[in-house]
């Protein structure tokens, strides 16, 4: 998605009655949350300024090469079973981790539910979470990439 498309999308959502909007594509994730106050056309920040953008628009900087699969030292955590992927222990519980968060070795990082059994999936390494390519509640197959992690040692 280029800057022009991004600006158009933000304007479209801002004018709509949606209060929250999430968009996920390979290598890119966008989340828009409206706060109270008069609607105004939002500015799309340049990628270099993404970190300095004030809330409510929180746009993570797009990765340098969104089309490349996890390489350059990133470790992929894949689903060990087929089932439904959950970011947290329950619908009201906070997610186990977020992008940018850190996980310890052995820490529960997500749940894959199969036949009503909530299987806790642990991270095998200490790492920073770089990317979560699957959405909460999404069906996942055996071997599907759930997290891309940067090992921390």
């Amino acid at each position, binding site marked *: 998605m280029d800057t022009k498309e991004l600006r158009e999308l933000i304007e479209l959502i801002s004018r709509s009655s949606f209060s929250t909007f999430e968009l996920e594509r390979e290598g890119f994730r966008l989340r828009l949350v409206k706060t109270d106050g008069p609607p105004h056309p939002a500015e799309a920040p340049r990628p270099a300024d993404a970190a300095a953008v004030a809330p409510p628009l929180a746009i993570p900087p797009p990765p340098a090469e969104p089309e490349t699969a996890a390489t350059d030292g990133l470790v992929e955590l894949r689903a060990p079973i087929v089932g439904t992927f959950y970011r947290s222990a329950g619908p009201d519980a906070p997610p186990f981790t977020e992008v940018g968060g850190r996980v310890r070795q052995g820490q529960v990082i997500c749940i894959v539910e199969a036949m009503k059994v909530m299987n806790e999936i642990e991270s095998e390494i200490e790492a920073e979470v770089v990317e979560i390519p699957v959405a909460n509640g999404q069906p996942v197959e*055996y071997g599907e990439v759930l997290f891309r992690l940067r090992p921390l040692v």
Partner: protein
Amino acid sequence: MFRKILIANRGEIALRIIWACRELGIKTVAVHSAADADSLHVKFADEEVCIGPAANRESYLNVSAVISAAEITDAEAIHPGYGYLAESAHFAEVCRECGLTFIGPPPEVIRRMGDKAEARRTMIAAGVPTVPGSDGIVPDVESAATIARELGYPLLIKAAAGGGGRGMRIAGAAEELERQFEAARAEAGAAFGSPEVYLERLLLEPRHVEIQVVGDSHGNLVHLAERECSIQRRHQKLLEECPSTALDAELRARMTQAALTAAGTVGYVNAGTVEFLLDARGEFFFIEMNTRIQVEHPVTEVVTGIDLIKEQVRIAAGEPLSFTQEEVSITGHAIECRINAEDAETFRPSPGKITTFHPPGGPGIRLDTACHAEAVVPPYYDSMIAKVIARGNTRGEAILRMRRALDSFVIEGIRTNIALQQRILSEEDFVRGRISTGFMERFLLPPARSTTG
């Protein structure tokens, strides 16, 4: 009728089930191991889910993975094919508990017929002839010796939890009984989880003749005649045909009636096969019932014109049979040859990449396969890669058609048993219909050396 069916199998049978579902307007879900990601059944299904790594135990035999895949795809029913979970009463029960329709008989029926000793008792009570033997499990060598004195030698020691020819030992004479009995118990325990065995008279030169039956949930139960399956190597069928050269109308009537009694007495629903051994004097004996669709079902389909897989799906959806017994007739003669990825002489498996694949065709030829050029035959699974079915107006024509079809079936990159099948089809005993379960053993013996000088 179902909207979506998950196929808990792989290879040619998974594809076969997909074809039937397509014709019925039902969406399909293919589950596969990581090793089968590029398989044809995965490509032709509407949806696909990888359920585990290559090993059978962690993929195609993994009940929770299969059920989980059905849940995330909203499949309503599961067709188990043959092998794998097709005769797992436990799997059928789990399906039922999870609100999924298992396409096959109820778990109680699977369990009853799956225990070979229990099945025997059920048949005896129903008046279906069974091979003379122990009535139930033989717990120790002493009881075995007592029973053996009545049965006579040679006799067969069979695992109660076995089947398909596995878990059997022969005691040729009284001196061998103890050794073979203990060995059979040890093997049964290791292979099937239960060391329980029973004894049977060993018939000489019998034919393996099985009867296809199919029943719906409205009380209709019919037979679709026999299949002659005597050409077996180590109890693995190689070539099957319908009709059997040994059955005349009267014998067929008696055997099909016995099969219907056998199936009826357990309240059988869906497709199944009652297996008999037929001896040369026209006496037949029940050996087991397979509570699933069989590999060789196409033989019956091409002579009756009935699509058994579609019928299975309809029955599972609660519909009555689409035909009556009176409408079942055999027209012509069909032969099926199983094509295995193995060396035609050593029988060693030959997995690998198929570089050339030219399938047979022409009049009266049907091919069931999931193979193609560039396909990789993995080493983890059964070596059967294709079934060629030839139909003719007579047995002679079916044989001629099969020979010419196998001549034109080109598979390169892996070894196959096509050459072996061609030799069988040219063997005089086979052509004359002089076959029994001893056929392959004799056929594979090294030729007798002629004396010189």
